[in-house]
């Protein structure tokens, strides 16, 4: 009922402007560069063991089964968050939710595109900048390229993905993005020193 009403209102006023949090903000320090990444499509995916193959096929990316790993194909990345939980990020503008909708195998896909803001942290001191608030071991042995994990940064929860040897993608909740960006800005200054 409420959903139907919301739909009608949306159709009547199509000009509602959506403003991305922190859009386009950047910061450069010695050895670390921060940038707020453009909006992406994201889903939170819960899949029981029996449906993993069907969902992997529908999404076009094989859902990784190993802890702390991710898989990427054609701009779509699936991050292992838990034994039956994944975060799927699509940066090409295609909606992974629509792909999941066709699957009849048991699963739960929730669109969270606008819940998260992504910040890229890159440069030779990127790991030490993140480590100023994140207690995980980010050495290349423990956290190699494409490793992904839900963890904490300072006081908030983030999802961390290593996109290259010296680059990370930090996913945080939109309402926390200001805190995270400020925290990382301070950390970037410290990491450079």
């Amino acid at each position, binding site marked *: 009922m409420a959903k139907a009403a919301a739909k009608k209102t949306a159709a009547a006023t199509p000009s509602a402007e959506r403003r991305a949090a922190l859009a386009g903000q950047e910061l450069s320090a010695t050895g670390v560069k921060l940038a707020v990444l453009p909006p992406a499509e994201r889903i939170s995916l819960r899949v029981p063991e029996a449906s993993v193959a069907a969902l992997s096929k529908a999404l076009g990316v094989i859902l990784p089964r190993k802890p702390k790993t991710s898989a990427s194909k054609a701009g779509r990345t699936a991050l292992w968050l838990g*034994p039956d939980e994944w975060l799927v990020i699509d940066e090409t503008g295609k909606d992974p939710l629509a792909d999941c909708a066709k699957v009849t195998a048991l699963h739960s896909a929730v669109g969270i595109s606008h819940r998260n803001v992504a910040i890229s942290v890159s440069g030779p001191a990127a790991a030490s900048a993140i480590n100023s608030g994140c207690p*995980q071991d980010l050495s290349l042995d423990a956290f190699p390229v494409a490793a992904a994990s839900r963890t904490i940064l300072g006081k908030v929860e983030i999802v961390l993905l290593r996109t290259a040897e010296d680059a990370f993608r930090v996913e945080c909740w939109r309402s926390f993005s200001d805190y995270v960006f400020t925290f990382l800005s301070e950390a970037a200054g410290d990491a450079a020193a």
Partner: protein
Amino acid sequence: MLLIRCPYCEEERPELEFRNAGEAHIARSANIAGESDDDFEKFFFIRSNPKGIIYERWRHMHGCARFFNAVRDTISDKFIMTYKAGEPKPVKLPGVAK
């Protein structure tokens, strides 16, 4: 900082990612409405609070978010072992006499 091994993530993670969730292996009665007040009190409120080995539930809150069980020594605060939720209470504890 303590490192706690998460049985689902299969590695040791910093304690900041975890939350304690009380004593483990407390079975809820299948007939909870038929419980006497005394039995319900025992189930609901009374905890063992031992000095020494304790079996606890922990949650990897800011990681895989799964609950698991841990055996901890309340004197040294050392984690003796962790195991997945639903697995039986371990009979033999590594590195513990008796």
